[in-house]
């Protein structure tokens, strides 16, 4: 009895000691509950305030994580969640993505006309961001599973926001089916790991040391199964089939969120996973796993880029572009022996702005001008030069052309891969480097379709559309980092470095 009491009080002490490190998550949870509660009221004023309450919550979490300092009581919550610099930086990106999503939603026509469930919608954005934060912090397989499921469930609901829309429902169903499957597979793989090591703490050295004694094939299979879940989240091949349908059916702000939030969180999870066995002494034992990751990155790059060529709608085109960016990020993760974490985070930061920018652009065209296919853009760049130039900036940054930050992101990743190749001379890296760089040419071929129709094709359009000032400001806001971080990438890199230096 006494023993149990002692154990309990010890556990409570540990929880209390670690709880401080979860301040941003508590904030998000609080505002989530607040939104759910306020949504019960019928008052129009309150209804109108809901998005702003969501922004407040996200903003509070963002500021807390930028300022830091809340982890003074320790960074570890039990053996489940670790609030190190990597997680905080991820948290900043997720909160920013959340804020952008809400802002985009405010301008979205379909969401504006939504009769019911607007409160829910904003609440679930918070829930999703909360889940992403937990993903980035997880150092325990079971906790990780919970976090990923939190994100998935929020994603399913957000996809289905427009219940009366047929393609939305189709997207939702596909998403749930694929999601459930990959979750099951991942859990299966995790159980292998637990069986082999008796531990769930996958970032510890002991975990991977113990695995060395197990059958290599077994370990590789288990890891591949676990990666199924991660790949689903980052939309890497071969778990990318849900992407085009969901991108086609979900509301635009949600698509923008999916193309950044879960992808970034998934990459951070893989980063933690890979970091644990990337040490020079150990990496040789996991060469099969490395080969698998390399092949997956290669397949993601190739399939993402080549499939994008044949797409007829801008949403699907960007869906495959999003797949290809997952490939770049994966390739960046495999540059063992270099400081790849910094470059990958840099790339993700830039991706955040590029994607929200281009999806906002699409939303404006879809809502105001009913452009849903690529030829629909014909001549509109001349009619609306401001929008056209903004689109150019996002698209060329996505392609990776100077003078835009997308180029810097790619340059950093390719530099790491080259450096890693010169250290290990693993032909896989050379293949990734070559494929990554040459596929940029393919990427240009499909990205340029949008400016091609915007500027090169002619079309008489009589409509005279006035773009709201807030939309314009947002569009400009998203381009600023793309220009600034091309000319001064050191600003961002230094910050990332400082964040990453905050380990245990």
């Amino acid at each position: 009895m006494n023993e149990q009491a002692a154990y309990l009080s010890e556990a409570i002490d540990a929880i209390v000691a670690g709880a401080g490190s979860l301040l941003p998550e508590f904030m998000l949870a609080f505002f989530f509950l607040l939104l759910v509660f306020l949504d019960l009221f019928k008052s129009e004023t309150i209804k109108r305030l809901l998005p702003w309450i969501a922004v407040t919550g996200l903003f509070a979490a963002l500021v807390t994580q930028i300022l830091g300092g809340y982890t003074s009581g320790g960074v570890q919550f039990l053996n489940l969640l670790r609030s190190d610099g990597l997680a905080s930086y991820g948290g900043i990106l997720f909160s920013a993505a959340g804020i952008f999503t809400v802002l985009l939603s405010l301008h979205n026509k379909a969401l504006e006309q939504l009769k019911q469930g607007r409160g829910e919608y904003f609440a679930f954005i918070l829930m999703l961001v909360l889940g992403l934060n937990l993903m980035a912090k997880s150092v325990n397989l079971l906790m990780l599973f919970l976090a990923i499921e939190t994100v998935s469930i929020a994603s399913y609901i957000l996809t289905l926001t427009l219940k009366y829309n047929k393609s939305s429902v189709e997207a939702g169903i596909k998403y749930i089916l694929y999601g459930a499957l990959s979750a099951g597979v991942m859990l299966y793989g995790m159980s292998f790991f637990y069986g082999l090591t008796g531990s769930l703490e996958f970032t510890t050295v002991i975990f991977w040391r113990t695995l060395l004694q197990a059958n290599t094939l077994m370990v590789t299979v288990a890891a591949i199964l676990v990666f199924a879940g991660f790949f689903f989240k980052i939309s890497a091949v071969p778990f990318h089939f849900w992407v085009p349908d969901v991108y086609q059916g979900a509301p635009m702000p949600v698509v923008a969120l999916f193309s950044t939030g879960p992808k970034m969180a998934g990459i951070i999870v893989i980063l933690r996973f890979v970091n644990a066995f990337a040490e020079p002494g150990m990496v040789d034992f996991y060469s099969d796993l490395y080969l698998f990751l390399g092949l997956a990155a290669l397949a993601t790059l190739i399939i993402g880029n080549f499939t994008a060529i044949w797409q007829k709608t801008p949403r699907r085109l960007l869906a495959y572009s999003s797949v290809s960016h997952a490939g770049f990020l994966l390739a960046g993760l495999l540059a063992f022996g270099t400081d790849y974490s910094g470059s990958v985070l840099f790339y993700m930061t830039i991706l955040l702005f590029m994607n929200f920018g281009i999806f906002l652009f699409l939303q404006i065209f879809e809502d105001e001008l009913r452009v849903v296919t690529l030829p629909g853009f014909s001549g509109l760049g001349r009619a609306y030069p401001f929008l056209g130039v903004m689109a150019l900036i996002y698209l060329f940054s996505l392609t990776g052309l100077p003078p835009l930050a997308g180029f810097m992101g790619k340059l950093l990743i390719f530099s790491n891969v080259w450096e890693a190749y010169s250290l290990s001379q693993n032909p896989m890296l050379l293949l990734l480097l070559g494929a990554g760089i040459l596929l940029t040419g393919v990427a240009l071929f499909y990205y340029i379709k949008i400016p091609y129709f915007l500027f090169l094709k002619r079309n008489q359009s009589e409509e005279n559309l006035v773009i709201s000032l807030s939309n314009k400001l947002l569009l400009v806001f998203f381009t600023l980092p793309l220009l600034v971080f091309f000319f001064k990438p050191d600003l961002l890199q230094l910050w990332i470095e400082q964040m990453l230096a905050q380990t245990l």
Partner: protein
Amino acid sequence: MNLILSSLIFVPLLAALVVLVMPIRLQKPIKAVALLGALAQLVLAIVVYLNFQGAAVANGQRGYQFVEKLNWIGLSLGSLGRFQIEYFLGVDGISISMVLLTGIVGVIGIVSSWKITQNVKGYFLLYLLLLTSVMGCFLALDFFLFYLFFEFMLLPMYFLIGIWGGPKREYAALKFFIYTLVGSLFILIVMIGLYTSVVDPQATAWQLGLLERGMPANFDVIQQVRQLLQQNAIVSADMVHTFSIPAMTEPANFVPNSLLHVMSGVELWNLPIRFVAFLLLFAGFAIKVPTVPVHTWLPDAHVEAPTPISVLLAAILLKVGGYGLIRIVYPIFPDAGIYFAVLVGGLGVLSIIYAALCALAMNDLKKLIAYSSVSHMGFVLLGLASLTVEGVNGAIYMMFSHGIISAMLFLLVGVIYDRAHNRMILNFRGLAKRMPVYTSFVVVAFFASLGLPGFSGFIAELLVLVGGFSSPEATGMLPRWLTIVAVFGLLLAAAYYLWALQRMFFGKFWIYPDLRKDAILSDLNFREYLMLVPLAILALLFGLFPHLLLDKTGFAVTGFTEMVLQNGEEQLGRVLLMMNK
């Protein structure tokens, strides 16, 4: 610091910003601002050209003058040291002629664009951006900066062809974009490899504490750093990697166990990795030159582009390819340059002959001239591959001369197209009867291009061929038969030009009946004189007084060939030694 080179680059950009804020309906003032921007650039270019000292050796910078150097980006790579990107500009004998050419052609192009009516603001905005990026390419001495300008050229060009071009403009613009982008991606791969392999001795000395930060390093300190580096005595965290092209040309700046070091011994497809890097870079620039067999984008782009853009494309954009070969590829990989001399020279000769044969078969006058461009750019490769002083001088002379003459040729095609809305050779006969002055300019341009003595084209071809013929004895790069084959290119050039002249301009006047209705075959107007007369004078001037240009280039070229041959032979020996091991 002297800011003249920066102003040379950014004056058109400034004009572009002014154009950007001007209201769309002010068409004349927009054109005036653009003209002012281009004129200012020309004046600055002339000032730089006149003040450039042909034989000066600035301290250790191998003759770079008007140098501007600022730290731009310093990125930390953690355990791998740092890398720095500099805003590093300078001219030497190799770039000076290109700077002048850009200035001249920039102004001519604006005059030629005067009749543009569709979307004037956008057109001149893009045009000025193009001038900025081309000039930036010629002046940048930092590889990253060069690459930035090199890539940025594509965007304005894509839209200039794609919006203001002919009937198949979309296809041509896309083809141009994809081809050159793929070329620049090859360059990107090597650029990444190079900067991870090369350190900046001065900044590394600062990092090591050998020298106070900010102090310029003298030769001894730099030598000391290089020695330490080659003895593997510098830990990688202390290395400062650089994109500086002059630093990359010095073999002692390569990190010993990096992939692109001479002794790395790494092979790829049975070739030393340095050779592969050379081939990638060469391919990247060869697309831009363009060289057969990667030239196919050029005829399409030329045919579809509006006249002024054709002029810019032929006269200065193509030169970036040849310039890149001389500035970047050969000095950084001299060993591979020697090893692949026959390949480079052979591709040059192939371009000369094959493109000339194509030109012979063309029915469209503009296409004929486009192919003649490809043929003439072949001489640049041949001259460069010979690595003789005459050959390389000839290559540079050819780039300059071709810039002047091809600008003239495309303007002349524009003249007939403006009047008849057609430029098929067989649709016209005896134009000399109706347009005598026009015809005489065509004769001048054709003869200048085919290398008649007295015109700049003659000097260029002569120098290249002398270089090629002396190559077997002087440098041992090229077999003699290659140059002999190249001579047939001259004959073919004479054939396609004279035949076109005979078919289109001489004989009894006749014009294809369908064209008669809207063809107004008036002779040249004032604006056209304004463009053609200066170009004709320049072609003649540089044909009669070659020392005007050679005095500026000669010294740098001698330095270039000596360095390439000396470093190249030595490095080639070491590379092959590593391979045989």
